[in-house]
């Protein structure tokens, strides 16, 4: 662990040479370093500036040390999350939940069903907070079969759950490329350019209508936005669990989207009542009265319904594509048959 005394006397140039990520620290704190490379960290903030900012050189050094420690921990090879285990608690009436232990592994899809207010948010919060019988449900969550490291609760860089939900928007005023690059930078990705290219290419695979890296993110259509969010989260987010709150069946290839998330070794939890998505899951959790009432395995028979639904789904997508091209739907298709996945 680095202490502020270890770095307070270092010149800016030496500090940046040792810890290149400190550039972001200075920038985000609004401290100009250009032309001041020989100044010691503790002397970077003058007296007048210290009063304006309500901080001083010593505090800056302490914060810098804390930041460096966190970044080093973040950049280190953390333990890979390969499975989470949920141990049952109680529902709102104090009744025990309807399962013994629930183990979920990476590249598995679990769907969550139940009416609004039934306790889906609580379940998610329990997972996010890696509950240890210390939340209202009394559930316990284990990571890789063991009680979790406290970092999952308190470190901003290690969040267990990434979330994709229906009413999310992009609010920044950037192009697609700038936006993804900004995210890559915050994740300290080494080969940022090629990762950015890959995300944009993947998002274009998922979206019905292609977009360019120069498109403004606020100008993307609903389907394009969702495609970009999913590709970006799959490839750039460090969180091992992805929670999806419904994916609307418009302008996005949902099966491919899920396949992408699974190929990136994620655990996918999906709150949905859409039969195509729910049946793609290996199991589904039925939530009632604040607790998990049962865990249902998807049967072969249910899967046979899925293939019918997929054919319908593909049909609808095909119609959408033809409408977009300006074709009529009442005439025979030109060219090849619609692809039934």
């Amino acid at each position, binding site marked *: 662990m680095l202490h502020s005394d270890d770095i307070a006397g270092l010149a800016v140039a030496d500090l940046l040479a040792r810890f290149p990520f400190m550039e*972001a620290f200075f920038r985000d*704190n609004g401290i100009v370093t250009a032309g001041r490379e020989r100044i010691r960290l503790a002397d970077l903030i003058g007296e007048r500036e210290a009063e304006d900012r309500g901080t001083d050189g010593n505090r800056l050094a302490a914060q810098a040390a804390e930041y460096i420690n966190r970044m080093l921990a973040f950049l280190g090879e953390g333990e890979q999350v390969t499975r989470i285990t949920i141990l049952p608690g109680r529902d709102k009436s104090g009744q025990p939940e309807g399962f013994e232990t629930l183990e979920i592994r990476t590249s598995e899809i679990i769907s969550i069903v139940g009416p609004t207010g039934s306790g889906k948010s609580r379940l998610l919060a329990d997972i996010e907070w890696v509950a240890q019988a210390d939340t*209202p449900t009394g559930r316990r969550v284990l990571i890789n079969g063991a009680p979790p490291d406290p970092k999952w609760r308190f470190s901003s860089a290690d969040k267990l759950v*990434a979330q*994709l939900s229906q009413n999310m928007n992009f609010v920044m005023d950037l192009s697609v490329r700038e936006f993804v690059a900004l995210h890559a930078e915050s994740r300290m990705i080494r080969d940022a350019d090629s990762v950015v290219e890959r995300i944009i290419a993947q998002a274009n695979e998922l979206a019905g209508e292609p977009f360019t890296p120069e498109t403004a993110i606020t100008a993307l259509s609903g389907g394009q936005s969702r495609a970009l969010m999913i590709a970006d989260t799959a490839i750039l987010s460090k969180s091992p669990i992805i929670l999806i709150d419904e994916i609307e069946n418009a302008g996005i290839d949902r099966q491919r989207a899920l396949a992408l998330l699974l190929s990136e070794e994620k655990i996918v939890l999906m709150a949905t009542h859409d039969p195509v998505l729910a049946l793609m899951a290996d199991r589904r959790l039925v939530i009632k009265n604040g607790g998990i009432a049962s865990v249902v395995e998807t049967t072969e028979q249910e899967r046979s319904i899925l293939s019918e639904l997929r054919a319908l789904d593909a049909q609808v997508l095909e119609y959408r594509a033809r409408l977009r091209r300006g074709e009529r739907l009442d005439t025979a298709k030109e060219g090849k048959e619609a692809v039934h996945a």
Partner: protein
Amino acid sequence: MNLVTISGPPSSGKTSVILKTAAALMSRGLAVGVVKFDCLYTDDDELYRKAGIPVKKGLSGQLCPDHYFVSNIEAVADWGKKSGLDLLISESAGLCNRCSPYISGIKAVCVIDNLSGINTPKKIGPMLKMADIVVITKGDIVSQAEREVFASRVNAVNPGAVIMHINGLTGQGSYELSTLLYSVEAGFATLKGMKLRFSMPSALCSYCLGETRIGEEHQLGNVRKIDLHEEEPHAAQ
């Protein structure tokens, strides 16, 4: 009694976060009260009353709201003790981004929202940088990427803080926050003798004293001039 100071820019979701968190605390059998500091107007006290939470409000009017806070917090804490509270939450808006009145030894929470823009963490002073816990709200309406970028910017300006994401509408995350706000050890007898974490901004000029006329000859006291040179020494990049 425990005291927690919660501050944050206007409309960042402080009241929603406090209401949900107080509900979690009250379900554990703790007596929670709120004091709301604002500048000109607030009807948030009604919301607290409706939730069955004892509340006092203070409007600073033409005074600097942070100076008003520090002149009154001791009396308010006494009120909380007399009312038998286990936890008193003080809520105040950070109005000028320069400061908010955190007290050494008293837990400080800053609430900011994802919609305020990724450069906001850089713009907020000690209110954000010296908080023990930073609560980020409105995560349900922005993309995962923006949430992560925003949190990393907060981490850069306050690396020591615990950063929590709370949904003020569903309350997701508020139970977790509640577990960090109250502890038997954090109880105290009186605020007398305690200190602010940082000084209040200095502002004593003719305009503080009621001057309304514009012009050099009317400016007395602590006055600072804008730098209109071509090259700004501390320009942000």
